[in-house]
């Protein structure tokens, strides 16, 4: 009896649904029918072309060198393969895309040229699979410093891994390990997207690019160019802080405690919110990230600590200029008891948890020469940053560390859309932070050369 009811009830529901659907469709006016016919005709035209194209064999020719009459060199079709008009007939088909980016850098520290080195900074392979028109997954796998083993310094990591679903009305939801909307670099971190062989120090030591957390995010872009992103994610874990190394000071406090989805502590939730306004040639935006970071570890003295990181950024590209600025500021509350414990512990000169860290930069680039294929863009960037700008009301705390001032002067040579050669000189006025030499923390100025690509 129960079994029969299980069959009968859904059947009735289906019948009801079909009945409602047919009554609704009978209510369609002639005018609407005419419109539908027009729509079908248009769709049919597109489909006819698709058939014609298929019947006449493959037309997607390899990029033929076109003998331009007056124009400069021709862009390869690989950078912009116009697809067949059949694409307009709607999608729904599963498809998979491979992407990749990578960069290799040469660094010569001025004060210690003996540690000059070449490093495959990162090699990234990405995979996007679209299940249907509304749902896809995005994954990125990364190797840093070329070789990863128990005796090597390289890292192998999952940089992004999320599923994305688009809803009607321009809403999008992401679930998984995704990049936080913070600053100019974090979500757009490919070597072709920033100036300099290395990312700005503010975007590595204050905002720990490439910063990702596991969570659920939503976003929406409005017709006026506003993009809102918000979400709930895992939070950094302050109990990972290591007072015996200077990592927290030299790489930055968040780089030392973020979870990156590796058994990430998940007792405390974090929230993030960002807004960006984009119009042609200009972008302004801001974001905030807030969470508890103690993760309720048994006996841990930092369990009440809260992180607040906010930033504002802007970019303006009038004519040949590309101007950008960013300011980020973070606080970690209630760290006095923890720092007190470190100060009176067994570690001489322990690295304390900063109560305040901040940094900002202004950058100007100018396209001095370009044709359809090459572009040369010198740039200058001035950064001020402090990854340990105070220790709150801690008694006996060390004196506040002064700000570091960093100049970067260099140039980028772009080849097509996907390849960039870079050269720059980076100078640290106070030698407080290391230049990006992986062999330990070599402080100070350096000459850097690099090549990178992205597709």
């Amino acid at each position, binding site marked *: 009896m129960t079994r029969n009811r299980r069959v009968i009830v859904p059947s009735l529901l289906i019948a009801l649904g079909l009945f409602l659907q047919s009554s609704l469709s009978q209510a369609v006016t002639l005018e609407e029918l005419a419109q539908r016919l027009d729509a079908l005709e248009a769709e049919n*035209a597109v489909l006819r072309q698709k058939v*014609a194209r298929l019947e006449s064999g493959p037309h997607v020719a390899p990029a033929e060198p076109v003998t331009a009459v007056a124009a400069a060199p021709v862009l390869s079709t690989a950078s912009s393969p*116009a697809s067949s008009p059949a694409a307009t007939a709607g999608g729904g088909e599963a498809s998979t895309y491979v992407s990749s980016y990578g960069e290799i850098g040469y660094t010569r520290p001025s004060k210690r040229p003996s540690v000059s080195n070449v490093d495959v900074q990162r090699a990234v392979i990405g995979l996007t699979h679209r299940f249907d028109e509304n749902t896809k997954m995005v994954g990125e796998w990364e190797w840093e410093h070329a070789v990863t083993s128990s005796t090597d310094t390289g890292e192998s990591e999952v940089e992004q891994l999320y599923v994305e679903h688009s809803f009607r009305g321009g809403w999008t939801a992401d679930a998984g390990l995704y990049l936080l909307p913070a600053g100019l670099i974090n979500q757009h971190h490919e070597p072709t997207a920033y100036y300099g062989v290395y990312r700005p120090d503010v975007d590595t030591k204050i905002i720990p690019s490439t910063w990702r957390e596991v969570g659920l995010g939503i976003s929406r872009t409005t*017709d006026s160019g506003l993009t809102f992103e918000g979400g709930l994610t895992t939070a950094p874990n302050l109990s990972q802080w290591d007072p015996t190394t200077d990592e927290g000071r030299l790489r930055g406090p968040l780089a030392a405690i973020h979870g990156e989805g590796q058994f990430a502590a998940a007792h405390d939730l974090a929230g993030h919110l960002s807004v960006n306004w984009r119009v042609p040639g200009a972008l302004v935006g801001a974001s905030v990230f807030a969470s508890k970071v103690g993760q309720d570890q048994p006996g841990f003295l930092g369990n009440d600590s809260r992180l607040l990181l906010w930033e504002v950024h802007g970019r303006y590209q009038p004519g040949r200029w590309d101007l950008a600025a960013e300011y980020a500021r973070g606080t970690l509350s209630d760290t006095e008891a923890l720092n007190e414990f470190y100060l009176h512990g067994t570690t001489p000169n322990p690295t304390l948890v900063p109560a305040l860290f901040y940094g900002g930069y202004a950058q100007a680039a100018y396209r001095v020469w370009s044709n359809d294929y090459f572009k040369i863009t010198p740039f200058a960037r001035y950064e001020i940053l402090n990854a340990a700008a105070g220790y709150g009301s801690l008694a006996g705390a060390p004196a506040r560390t002064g700000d570091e001032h960093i100049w970067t002067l260099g140039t980028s040579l772009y080849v097509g859309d996907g390849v960039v050669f870079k050269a720059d000189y980076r100078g640290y006025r106070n030698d407080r932070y290391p230049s990006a030499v992986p062999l330990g923390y070599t402080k100070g100025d350096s000459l850097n050369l690099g090549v990178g690509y992205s597709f």
Partner: protein
Amino acid sequence: MNTPYAWLWLPVAAFTAPAYATTYLTVEQAQQLMFPGQALTAMPLRLDDAQRLTVERTSGLAVPHLDFALWRVGSGGYFFVDAVLGKHELITYALGVNPDGTIKDVEILDYRESYGGEIRNASWRQQFVHKSVADPLKLDQDIRNISGATLSSRHVTEGVRRLMAIHATLPR
């Protein structure tokens, strides 16, 4: 269907069917936006080898396929629908051309990338309006990009340039 209440999903499934969330405009909607009240006649276009060469010379871009979705507008003018790659995914867009050969409008029909959807904004598309095949129609020259959507901006701009070169071969 081992769970006793699995059938509860049936009515839900009925409501989640076809419309694609990545589709912002259908072809018909774009036609009505650009040419309200006008009759549009589909006239699928196939380029011959000579036309292809002319288009490649005019635009400075290769023409990777020869068939184009084209409509003739009743009062004169043309309407194209085409697709280009953004970074990895296809962007379907429409181009309306006035009887005098200037661009009436560009509309983005489908946008699927995770970033860069701002190229749908009127302020970006407005840059094309009134331009003709005689204009450069090049990113960083007469068309400015959207920060974070450089490839999408560039490829739609190139697509429009290619279509305008094709349009130049059509009878007025």
